[in-house]
């Protein structure tokens, strides 16, 4: 299905934002400004953008550890996302979470849970609550091919299918879990087949084709909103970076990366914009410039932001009790 020109332009903007936001993250992780580890979604932007744009603000969203992209689009101002990843006081979670834990419940972004598979069962609860309250909000989970090994994923699908809960399993198959190829960890030819055993509808699609991502996600969302229960979409894609920024990724052949770089989701959608929709290069450059400026403003905001105050570590542990401070 072809998306209209304006929608496609807007999705291109989203993907360009994700790509270049993460370029900055990569740079500042490499020079030591960002503490800890970051996982980049570079190469997978179409999955991140397409899924989130097929949802609405009230839908429950569960980005995974490679989820900067989805998080940027859930509704939080990107500058608060960036400040969080840098561990600054102005971050959306005050610096307590960092790259792996960017949560913003005001837009129903659950954020990632560092324990793989965990969100699969949490999402049962938000899906249940929506059903219980007769709203038609859906719960969409991003999960990697590797994560499918966790028992929680299987418990989740079994229960969601039995109770017809509005859950959408967005399975990002980028071929690897850290160094382990997907085919060495799972018996299925196509991971999509996992859903068959539970009678759950599924699709396997090109995760670098933004139009396909949006189209199929909307179809799954529709089913869930109508009370038809869960479904699964396997997005076939590739992460350009290693597992974390700085991982040399010596476990995979160089040709593989070359192949996937030719299938860059940004280049593919730019081509459609120009060749099919007649968008000019100037229009595209205007979009890109606007995003570049926005990102420079985010970066300035972040770098000018203070570190948290140490005793902030004590806040929010309980609602009704306080925690003893350092003596």
């Amino acid at each position, binding site marked *: 299905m072809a998306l209209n020109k304006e929608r496609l332009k807007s999705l291109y903007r989203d993907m360009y934002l994700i790509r270049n936001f993460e370029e900055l993250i990569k740079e500042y992780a490499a020079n030591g400004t960002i*503490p*800890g*580890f970051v996982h980049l979604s570079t190469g997978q932007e179409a999955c991140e953008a397409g899924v989130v744009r097929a949802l609405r603000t009230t839908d429950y969203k569960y980005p995974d550890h490679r989820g900067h992209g989805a998080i940027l689009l859930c509704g939080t101002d990107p500058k608060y996302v960036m400040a969080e990843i840098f*561990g*600054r006081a102005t*971050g959306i979670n*005050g*610096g*307590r*979470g*960092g*790259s*792996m*834990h960017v949560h913003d419940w005001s837009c129903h972004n659950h954020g990632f*849970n*560092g*324990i*793989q*598979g965990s969100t699969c069962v949490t999402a049962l609860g938000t899906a249940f609550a929506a059903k219980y309250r007769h709203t038609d909000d859906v719960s969409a989970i991003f999960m990697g091919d*590797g*994560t*499918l*090994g*966790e*028992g*929680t994923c299987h418990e989740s699908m079994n229960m969601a299918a039995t109770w017809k809960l509005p859950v959408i399993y967005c399975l990002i198959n980028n071929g690897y*879990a*850290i*160094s*382990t190829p997907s085919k*060495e*960890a*799972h018996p299925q030819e196509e991971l999509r087949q996992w859903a068959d055993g539970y009678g759950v509808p599924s699709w396997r699609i090109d995760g670098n084709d933004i139009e396909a991502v949006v189209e199929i996600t909307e179809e799954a969302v529709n089913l869930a909103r109508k009370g038809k229960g869960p479904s699964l979409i396997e997005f076939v894609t590739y992460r350009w970076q290693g597992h974390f920024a700085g991982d040399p990724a010596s*476990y995979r052949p160089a040709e593989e990366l070359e192949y996937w770089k030719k299938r860059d989701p940004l280049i593919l959608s730019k081509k459609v914009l120009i060749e099919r929709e007649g968008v000019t290069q100037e229009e595209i450059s205007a979009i890109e410039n606007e995003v570049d400026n926005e990102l420079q403003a985010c970066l300035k905001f972040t770098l000018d932001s203070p*570190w*948290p*105050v*140490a*005793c*902030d*570590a*004590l806040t929010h*542990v309980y609602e009704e009790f306080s*925690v*003893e*401070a*350092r*003596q």
Partner: protein
Amino acid sequence: MSRVITYAKAINEAMIQEMERDENVFILGEDVAKMGGDFGLTQGIYPRWPDRIFDTALSESAIVGLANGAAIAGLRPIAEIMFADFAGVAFDQIVNSTAKMNFMFQEEANCPVVIRAPQGAGIRCAYHHSAVVESWFLNTPGLVIVSPASPYEAKGLLISAIRSDDPVLFLEHKVLLNAKGEVPQESYALPLGKGVIERDGKDVTIVALQLTVKMALEAAKELEKEGIAAEIINLRTIKPYDEELIAKSVAKTSRLVIAQEGPKVGGWAAEISAMVSEKYFEYLEAPIQRVTCLDVPVSFSPVLEDYYMLNAADIVAAAKEAVSF
């Protein structure tokens, strides 16, 4: 022959030497084989024994479950959990199976499993990659819990853990992986359940484990400047812990400080403290001091994580308080 190697290398060497000695020893875990482990602890094993080290799916429950079953069937599994925090996923297997197999089967079968997992805060990875987990498992009879503080201990204790017929939770500290120290090349076993005196002193006993051993030694240097001689106990094994060593030291010093990484409430320091006040109350001339982290999840931002963590200065302050009581 002894030479200087890292804590990570010492762990690697222990596994290799035990695999050479006993063909029933095998390893499984996420990314342990071809990549040699997320922290590189299983480097060089797959090329040598491709049939004895296995990359698994992300399935901690199955990793430990498989190890349990293989162990009662006569093998000696080493199960790696990539970060100790993920042991939560395998919690049922560990507390209800691993720990209870010996009890279930009496002499007919035993469960010589080693579950290895890097733990601890200090690497800016926030609340799902920073836990120390001794205290999660302390209340589980049947488990041995080991937390080595140096490369020398890491090798000798891991070798004992692999040879032991009891299941051992072997917790490595992420911050110590690159720490260097003298380690004999040849295989050697250090006793499980035994601590060591790292430094003699007569004024106050400081009980430490793993990361806090170094902090306690630093604190002792500071205390020395003020004329306080601290005795440092490195427990090495936290379950079962070396009660005799602690009691002897407290009999001498009459003052006890316990330095524990991890939240205070319900931590292992509480157990040591309770044991000493229950059994050796008459030795004490001051209240027991626990120096621990705060009762909060570990935050990401360095300022917040450092505030959570204990340090040598905290130990100095507690020791002074104990001595001046």
